[in-house]
């Protein structure tokens, strides 16, 4: 701001000095002309109107003329004319004319006779001067010797009631040249001073603006590199510039910004560390869960073959299954779906799976195993988590499956129908679940399919469910357990057509042989 004001001020002073000079020189010229006019009037006082108008030169006239010529010559006046306006208002009579230039004066004396009448209409200025108005302003006129600056004065003369007019001409170019010389003489030091001011301003500008900005800019360029390579908690030194102006504000903003970025980077780093730690734990949980429940299991024995597969929708899921052959040759199976998803479901799954598996192996009665597991879980379950499942045993000798259903979806006979809904209740919520055993007999070549709601409630982009009927149709032609499970999975994948699923998908099939 201050720099702009300085530059404007120096420019203005240059212009003002020129204007002042012109006015000064014009004032000086007007003063000299006043002296000329006074001297001329004094000289005219020594003559009379008759002498001025008579055709021959008289002593008085000559003396007056000589005096005026001397004054003009000394004071550098080009011409001085005394004349009267004629009554016809379009001509004037020249009574006395002298020139400051001696040669020209001689010529005039010879060539311009007394009472020379010339055609010239009276100007407004001349009329003004005659009527007594004070008018010291010069007028630009054209004369024989070039352009003039002319002043007009009234002249009193003895023997005439009316005033005569006096015109004093000065060489215009001479006066302008003088003005120009003076201005130049004044302007050169002014320009020099201005140049000095500009140089000082540039130096100040570099010192106060450019250099500090360069410092800030250099710090900014290196900030990210320093921030990313910096170790530990130390924050870089703040930019110190004790200033109250805009540069100071930029420094403050820069310090605030780097402080904020440092803080945010720190937050992001700690969040990333936590995220990495959480992901590591999740992948550990997933490995543990996969150890408990492999993605698929195929079992074949005397009189049966079985296949189970599970696909998790998330990192750790809530479904699980179990398929194993007991010491007496019977096939034990469990298929379950824990309420909720994620880590909490996985924890609950691990706990309930172990419990159910142990109960099934020890008491060999599905309903009894599930009722005992239920009471055990329900006695301390503040989070109200639960698991729905079917657990059962196949006797390969008879093809009879004894199973208990704890609030789970009804099993499907491959190529047949869904078995009737059981009387059970989900496991883990209410003590005394009253779960009962049910039986189904498979003839050799017949199969059964257990599934979680990840199958029947698989949904496509239009939010339609895969549903029980499509599942029934998909497995109708299957001739073995692997075939039944794969047919169901393929049909579901075709149906959802890539639409992301949020539920685990687990299928378990048993065929009698």
């Amino acid at each position: 701001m201050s720099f702009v004001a300085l530059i404007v001020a120096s420019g203005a002073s240059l212009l003002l000095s020129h204007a002042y000079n012109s006015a000064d020189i014009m004032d000086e010229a007007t003063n000299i002309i006043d002296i000329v006019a006074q001297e001329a009037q004094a000289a005219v006082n020594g003559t009379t109107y008759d002498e001025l108008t008579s055709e021959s030169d008289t002593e008085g006239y000559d003396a007056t003329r000589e005096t005026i010529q001397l004054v003009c010559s000394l004071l550098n006046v080009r011409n001085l004319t005394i004349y009267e306006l004629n009554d016809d208002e379009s001509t004037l009579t020249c009574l006395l004319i002298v020139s400051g230039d001696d040669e020209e004066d001689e010529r005039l004396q010879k060539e311009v006779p007394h009472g020379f009448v010339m055609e010239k209409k009276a100007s407004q200025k001349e009329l003004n001067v005659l009527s007594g108005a004070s008018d010291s302003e010069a007028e630009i006129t054209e004369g024989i010797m070039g352009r003039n600056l002319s002043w007009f004065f009234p002249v009193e003369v003895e023997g005439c009631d009316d005033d005569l007019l006096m015109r004093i001409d000065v060489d215009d170019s001479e006066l302008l040249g003088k003005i120009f010389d003076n201005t130049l003489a004044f302007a050169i030091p002014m320009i020099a001073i201005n140049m000095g001011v500009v140089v000082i301003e540039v130096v100040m500008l570099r010192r106060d603006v450019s250099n500090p900005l360069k410092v800030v800019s250099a710090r900014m360029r290196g900030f990210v590199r320093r921030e990313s390579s910096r170790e530990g908690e130390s924050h870089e030194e703040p930019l110190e510039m004790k200033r109250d102006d805009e540069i100071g504000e930029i420094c403050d903003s820069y310090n605030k910004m780097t402080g904020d970025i440092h803080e945010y980077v720190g937050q992001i780093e700690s969040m990333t560390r936590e995220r990495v730690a959480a992901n590591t734990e999740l992948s550990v949980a997933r490995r543990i869960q996969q150890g408990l429940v492999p993605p698929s299991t195929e079992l074949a024995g005397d009189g049966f073959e079985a296949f189970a597969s599970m696909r998790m929708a998330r990192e750790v899921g809530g479904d699980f299954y179990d398929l194993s052959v007991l010491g007496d040759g019977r096939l034990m199976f469990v298929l379950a779906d824990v309420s909720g998803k994620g880590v909490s479901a996985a924890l609950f799954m691990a706990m309930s799976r172990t419990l159910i598996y142990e109960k099934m192996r020890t008491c060999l009665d599905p309903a009894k195993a599930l009722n005992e597991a239920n009471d055990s879980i329900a006695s301390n379950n503040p989070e109200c988590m639960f698991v729905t499942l079917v657990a059962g045993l196949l006797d390969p000798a008879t093809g009879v499956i004894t199973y208990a259903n704890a609030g789970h979806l009804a099993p499907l006979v491959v190529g047949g129908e869904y078995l009737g809904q059981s009387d059970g209740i989900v496991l883990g919520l209410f003590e005394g679940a009253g779960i009962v055993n049910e039986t189904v007999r498979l003839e050799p070549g017949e199969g059964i399919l257990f599934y979680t709601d990840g199958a029947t409630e698989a949904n496509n982009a239009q939010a339609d469910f895969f549903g029980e009927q499509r599942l029934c149709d998909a497995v109708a032609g299957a001739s073995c357990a692997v075939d039944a499970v794969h047919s169901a999975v393929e049909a579901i994948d075709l149906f959802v057509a890539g639409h992301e699923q949020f539920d685990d998908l687990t299928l378990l099939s048993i065929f009698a042989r």
Partner: protein
Amino acid sequence: MKITSTAEGTTTTLALEGWLDSATAPEFGAALAAIDSSCEELIIDLSALEYISSAGLRQLVVAYKQMKGHLTICNTTAEVMQVFKVAGFDKRLRIV
């Protein structure tokens, strides 16, 4: 999921609309937590509930335990009723 809660004396009615699954169960949980302690009877109106998942079932049990059994579920649609039957909820919760 849209939940409308109306209180009349010591009875509060929560009307659920849309899907009650793992994504919306927390909303239902928040509505349950907001029920005034003076409430003695909770009615859950499921006339506009289109779907319920296991997470939704769990939240109903949370409500049942919070109300110490003073819970009535009404206007259940056939689809949701089928889920209740499979899970055995019809045997333990008052569903009218």
